Each structure stands twice: as C-alpha cells, then as structure tokens.
C-alpha cells in the first residue's frame, strides 16, 4: 500500500534550488511517435500490417516478417509482472538523484514483453494496468499500475514523477470572472491543491459568482489582466516563486468571420487576450516555473492552456477567434520548446463550443464549465499533455490527425454551404 504523501516541508531558503536533471531521451521518429501518443495518454504500439505482430520497442520494419508497414495502434492495457528489481545505482544523474527506483518486466496481453517503471503497489506475478506517459525529458515511457485502484495510489513517488498532480501544489487560475475559471478553482480545491491564486481583471466591474469565489477556502483573489503588461508583471512579482501550476482559462471569444467585422478591433481584442495575453503570462511566469521544475515533491510542474479545437483548423463561424486561437496554439508549441528539459509540462486542453452566451444559439453538444474543470484536473493528475474535450473536439482532432486538408474543406466549404 502506498503511504499517503504528507505536505512537503517548506524549502530551506539557505539552500540552492535543485536544478532539473533528465532521464534519457530518444530522438528517432518512431520513438517520438510513441512519445506523442503517450503525451495524449494513449498506449500505442506498432502493429505489423502484414502479420499483425505487435512490435516493441519501436522499429522501422517488422522483426518477424520484415514488412515495413508498421501501424501505430491503440493496444490492450493489460499485462502481468513477471520479473522485478530495484535499481540502487545508475550512471544517469536523474536516476541517481532518485534511487532506489523500481522497474520490472511485464508480459503484455497484446504480445510483447517490456521493461517498465513500476508502481509501488504492483506485486510480482500480479496483473497490471499499463499506461504510457511522458517523463521529465518528454520521452514516452511505459508504467505498470496495479490492476485495481489502491489507497493513495496517486501519491506513489515514481508515478508522481510522470504526473502533475495538483495535490499539495499551488496553482494560479488566470480568470476568476468566468464560469470556467470558477469551476476550475473548485475542482483544484477538491483535488487537494494547497493554495489557489485566482486572477480577476477589472475589479471595478461586478461579475457573477464573485461572492462565492471570495468565500472559498484556500483561494486568494489577486488583480490580473492579461491584456495589461504591468498587471501581469506585478502579479509575478508577488506569486511567481510560489506558483507550481499555471492554468490559463482567460479567453476572448466572439462569433464572426473577417467580413462580418467592419474593423480589426474585435480581432485585436481576441489577439490581445488569446495570443498576447498568453505571451505576457509566459514572459512573466515562464522563467519562474522553469527554474523550479525540480524543486522537491511540490515542484513547478505544469502550464495548462485552454484552447479552442478550431486552433487546429479555422471554423469561419468563429473565424477570427479561430485565428487568434491558432496563434495561441502555435505559441504553446513554442513554450513546449522553451520548457524542454525543465520538467514542466505544457498541457493543452482543446474544446469545442462551450456552454456560454457567445455560443448560445449553437446546438448541443456543448462543453460545460464543470466539464472543462474536470478535464483540467484529470489531465494534471494523469500527466496528459493534449486532451480533446467533448464530442466536437474529439471529432475535429481525430479528423485533423487523419488529414488536415480534408478537415479544412469540411469546415470551410461543407459547413459554409450548409449555412447558405
């Protein structure tokens, strides 16, 4: 049984912050494919198109029939632990700092036998549930969990190295004015966050839920307007060194395509919030998070962006908003590059139309604030870097993966034709 994690001790201010070190990294295209699926929380291995052998580790050709058509496929997550050991030494600095470390050999139900990281509650010979996640270097790794939930399972030290669990961490939610922001605060509180900083812009304008937000325990409301550089810089001066998770829920959404605008003002407001707002947050909080990526059990660990799935391909009904979301999505990729090696994950939650005033005339299904909040916390708890939320976003993401050029036609021509 995993021992319940205790609130991490406060850091000794006389000691230097621990700098991040990294587990090993592979750069082949096949290894990166495994990693990119793992980043979505998917357990995918290559399956031979000719002989259907499930291949592990990733290869260029099938080891059995030499066919080169290896297809990345979601596979069954069951397995059995057939051998285990505890590493007590390593030439890798990352693991040296974390000894002892438990690894084992799992016979996967899908066929291959693989060496993987082990949860502390997995016993020799037991059935396991295999997950694929990205580690601190961004590489996809296999991890064996107990088949059934065990007490304090998420507190396992080796598992926590792959996740961004908000438990005992301090999070900043950038927009407390919105239903999404408020639902996220509630979800973080329920997930055991130590403290939740909530940014509220323009406190001279009242907003729904203000009193409930202010009354919540562990919540500290602070002025933050992502369109105002000074405001962002003042906030980082106050809480930058204490923010372990940043969740950017601020968004500016308006229906309309280019020709439905008589000027660039609305589009500029969208860019100011969705793109430049994100950039201001990155410039202020990015260095602070990056520097604390290995700062103990409650280190800085995640940056969460709430993005429209139409960042991937423009939906003219919300055409200029889509364009600003595309800019923000691109910047999130830039941020992944800047965070590489820091141990801080960039998590993108992609949503379809949300349940709010700007999407009010649209038909269901729409994503609720509570649904988004749950997804944010789930992605943190599971260490998943990209999550499509709701039927619309899942569908758009799947079609984008299949063929972005066809999706573009579906969104710009079929959808436009239907509305004509």
């Amino acid at each position, binding site marked *: 049984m995993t021992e319940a994690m205790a609130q991490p001790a406060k850091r000794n201010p006389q000691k230097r912050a621990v700098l991040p070190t990294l587990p090993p990294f592979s750069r082949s295209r096949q290894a990166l494919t495994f990693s990119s699926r793992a980043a979505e929380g998917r357990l995918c291995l290559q399956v031979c198109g000719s002989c259907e052998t499930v291949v592990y580790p990733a290869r260029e050709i099938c080891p059995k029939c030499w066919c080169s058509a290896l297809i990345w496929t979601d596979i069954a997550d069951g397995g059995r632990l057939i051998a285990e050991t505890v590493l007590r030494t390593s030439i890798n600095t990352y693991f040296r700092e974390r000894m002892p470390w438990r690894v084992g050999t799992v016979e996967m139900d899908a066929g291959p036998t693989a060496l993987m990281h082990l949860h502390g509650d997995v016993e020799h010979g037991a059935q396991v549930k295999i997950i694929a996640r990205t580690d601190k270097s961004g590489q996809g790794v296999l991890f064996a969990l107990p088949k059934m939930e065990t007490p304090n399972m998420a507190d396992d030290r080796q598992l926590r190295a792959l996740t961004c669990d908000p438990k005992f961490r301090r999070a900043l939610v950038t927009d407390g004015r919105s239903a999404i922001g408020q639902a996220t605060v509630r979800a973080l509180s329920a997930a055991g966050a130590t403290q939740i900083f909530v940014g509220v812009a323009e406190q001279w304008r009242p907003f729904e839920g203000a009193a409930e937000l202010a009354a919540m325990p562990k919540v500290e409301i602070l002025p933050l*307007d992502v369109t*105002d*550089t000074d*405001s962002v810089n003042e906030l980082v001066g106050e809480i930058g060194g204490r923010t372990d998770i940043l969740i950017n829920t601020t968004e500016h959404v308006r229906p309309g395509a280019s020709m439905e605008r008589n000027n660039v003002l609305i589009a500029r407001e969208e860019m100011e919030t969705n793109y430049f707002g994100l950039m201001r947050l990155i410039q202020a909080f990015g260095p602070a998070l990056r520097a604390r990526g290995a700062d103990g059990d409650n280190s800085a660990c995640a940056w969460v962006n709430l993005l429209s799935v139409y960042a991937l391909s423009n939906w003219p009904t919300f055409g200029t908003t889509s364009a600003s979301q595309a800019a923000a999505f691109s910047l999130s990729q830039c941020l992944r590059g800047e965070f590489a090696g820091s141990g801080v994950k960039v998590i993108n939650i992609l949503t379809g139309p949300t349940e709010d*005033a700007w999407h009010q005339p649209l038909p269901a299904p729409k994503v609720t604030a509570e649904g988004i909040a749950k997804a944010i916390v789930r992605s943190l708890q599971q260490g998943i870097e990209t999550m499509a939320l709701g039927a619309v976003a899942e569908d758009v993401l799947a079609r984008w993966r299949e063929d972005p050029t066809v999706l573009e036609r579906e969104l710009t021509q079929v959808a436009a034709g239907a509305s004509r």
Partner: protein
Amino acid sequence: MTANALAGLADALSNGDIRVVDLTHTLDPDFPVIVLPAEFGQCARFRVEEISRYDDRGPGWYWRNFSCGEHTGTHFDAPIHWISGKDYPNAAVDSIPTSAFVRSVCVINCSKECAEDEDFLLTPEFIQQWEQQHGVIPAGNWVLMRSDWSKRSGAEYLNMRDDGAHSPGPSGDAVKFLIEERDVIGFGTETVGTDAGQAHLLSPPYPAHYLFHGANRYGLQCLANLDQLPPTGAVLVCPPLKIKNGSGSPLRVLAMIDGSGS
C-alpha cells in the same frame, strides 16, 4: 491693456495669487471606462508597453508606447461624438475653435444630493436655486456638475448592477435649459460620462450627449477635484489632443482659481 492683463496673469501665476488645480485622473490601466452591452464595440482601456528602460532595448533611455480610446480616462467630448452633432463644421477635436478650451467656469455643487441619491438628476429648478445664491450663469461659460463621484473607486465608481450603471447626471430639461436659456459652451461631470448611469431610460435617451452635441456644445467627464473649485470665478483650461477628426480625447484639465486667500 491686454499686454498688462497677460503680464498680470503671469505674475499672479508665479506668485501664487492664482492657483492651478488639476482636475484630471491619472491615466491608469485599471481606471474604469464606460462599458456598453457586450455586442457593441467597446472603449479601449489605457495600456502601456515599454520600448526600453536603460536596458538592452535602449541603454540610455526610458520610453513607452501607450494606447487608449478617445474616451478613456478624463476626456473631452466633441460634438461629432454624437449622431446629433455629426454635421457641424469645426466640431472635431482638431477643428474646434481654441477659445473654447480656456473659459470661465461655474461649478454646481450637487454632492449632498448625489450622496443621498445615486441616480440624482440635475434639474432646471436646482440650477435656478444655485443661481439665486451665485448669480446667473453667464453665456459662454463651462458648467461643471460636482457630485464628488471622483472620490469613489473600484466597483463603486461605475456602480454597475444587473440593470446597468447607477450614477448622477443632468435631466433632459436641465440640458435644454443650459443650452437655450444660458448658452453654455460645455458641460462636465465627475462620472464616466456626461449623462447619468440610467440615462438610456430618459427622453431623449442620453440627453447630455444628444442635446449638448446636437447644439454644438462640448463635454468633459471623469473630472476630479471639483470640490477645490469655487462656484464661480475660476477659469477652466481644457485643450484636447489635436487628433485628426477626433470625436474626443483624453486630456489634462486644469482650473485657475483665486489663490490670494490661501
């Protein structure tokens, strides 16, 4: 005579016989601006971005870009701001005759009434009562409505509720009275607009905007320190930025008052 008057003015300014009062709020990113229903275009907030500050972007100098709307912060309203004033010649901030920017000013103190009633409306009767004490408002004067609203901050300033903003302003009849009976050149307030918070429910809606600008008169809003002005006898200095075809402009508003007693 004129030369003597100017020399006298300069002397009085330097020796303190004339005191200069600042009626302007600081341009601050977090200062409230008027908020329209969300489907309308919105007034830009005041924003600043640093170009350099004695650093790698410019080692020896500090300078910034700022952006805002024509109606952000303490600002001037030109007649073309409103549809009723759109056809006047010389009615934009760059073409208004400059003599309008330096004028005598009457200050009507409504602060007690506004403290009791946040939707207080200035009426012709109230103005006439004021005149019984301070004399008839001379033609060509600015008239400022003192509400002490500038002492409010945060959410208290716009005072927004579910049915809109609640703040004082002039009634339609008061505006007509000031134009037709007193021929004032402009009207100023401490609130976010020259009209009351609930002025969309008046007839005509937004009477200060509709009628003053419809009569080619000017507006000032988000003024401060009106409690430092005498009811009469001060001179207002309020030149807006010379923005081509501008509907208004943020500006520094000053008043010259008798300082010989202080």
